[in-house]
């Protein structure tokens, strides 16, 4: 069988056919993977909340409050963690755009008094081997059990008390800024003082 000639009608028909097949198959696979994809995203979020607030017994997804904050009044998602009905902490999904490669999203857990419990990086594009060390315990335990009201969580180069990751000061600075944003959002919206 020889190739069809490159006439206008042949070219249009072939391109139409190939894009139609491609479009339909992508649509089908999108439908098919939609459920599992959403389940995966939710499971990751819940796992992140669970690891920043290990004590809680409720389903935090049911206790979502929005905290408008920052220069552009973006709302941060805040999940209220309860143990046996009493509020024990807050998991705030915060972000910064000042990472070495842009956006970093972090889940930060606070106790009801505002002490940082733990942090989990949800999304980032930092340099592997450098900026990614923000996920390692050597770096992030510096924040644990600290209250941003009494402990300056800026990096030492900016006059704070956090030792920046070697070779990744920009990432460390951005990380601190995101954590601070989460804390400020809790304070501004008077979440902490309610209890």
């Amino acid at each position, binding site marked *: *069988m*020889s*190739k*069809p*000639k*490159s*006439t206008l009608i*042949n*070219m249009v028909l*072939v*391109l139409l056919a*190939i*894009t139609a097949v*491609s479009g339909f*198959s*992508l649509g089908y*696979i*999108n439908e098919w*993977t939609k459920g*599992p*994809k959403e389940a*995966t995203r939710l499971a*990751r979020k819940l796992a992140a909340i669970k690891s920043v607030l290990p004590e809680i017994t409720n389903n935090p997804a049911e206790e979502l409050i929005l905290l408008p904050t920052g220069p552009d009044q973006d709302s941060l998602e805040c999940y209220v963690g309860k143990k046996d009905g009493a509020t024990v902490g807050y998991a705030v999904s915060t972000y910064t755009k000042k990472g070495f490669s842009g956006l970093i999203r972090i889940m930060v857990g606070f106790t009801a008094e505002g002490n940082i419990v733990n942090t989990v990086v949800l999304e980032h*594009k930092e*340099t*592997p*081997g*450098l900026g990614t060390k923000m996920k390692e315990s*050597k770096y992030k335990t510096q924040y644990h059990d600290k209250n941003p009201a009494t402990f300056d969580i800026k990096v030492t180069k900016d006059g704070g008390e956090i030792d920046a990751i*070697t*070779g990744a000061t920009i990432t460390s600075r951005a990380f601190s800024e995101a954590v601070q944003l989460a804390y400020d959002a809790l304070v501004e919206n008077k979440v902490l003082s309610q209890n």
Partner: protein
Amino acid sequence: MTQWKNFVKGIVSENPVFVMLLGMCPVLGVTSTAMNGLGMGVATMFVLVMSNIVVSSIKTLVPDKVRIPTFIVIIATFVTIVEMVLEAFLPSLYEQLGIFIPLIVVNCLILGRAEAFASKNNLVSSVVDGLGMGVGFTLALTALGAVREMLGNGSIFDIAFVPEGASTFILFILPPGAFITLAFLAALFNRMTRAAQN
């Protein structure tokens, strides 16, 4: 040409990275660790084999003047499928490779094999060509990632072999290190293949 020779050429005499210097964007961009190199290589190999299969099976139906747009649509479709399926069913791998997967579309290695090989050869040869090129690409990326990770981070496949806090050549994880390592590895590879031929 036997199928075995067809397979081996992608790894040695026509290695896409060290000999043909194709698909340099992912080669330089994602090889900061051995694991990243391996993951990118395997994902690329999958798309390469699938697109070779389709291109080879429809080669008699596509008019010459629209063959490139047709190949691109086929490649982009497979890349999108890979991305959706990974995100849904292998979330941990997706997390590692997430940002690299869309880059596969613009990898000229895949378009190059569709144009130079699959559109002129039968189905079986095209599959073997895709596998050979894919393995060659994966090996090259893993080697590059391993060298950069060892020198830059003091570890291999995330297993550290220097004490924590030891100073390493951070340069090798950063973009300039990719160019330097690629040049040395390509020179070494060509030296070795030439020595083997003589």
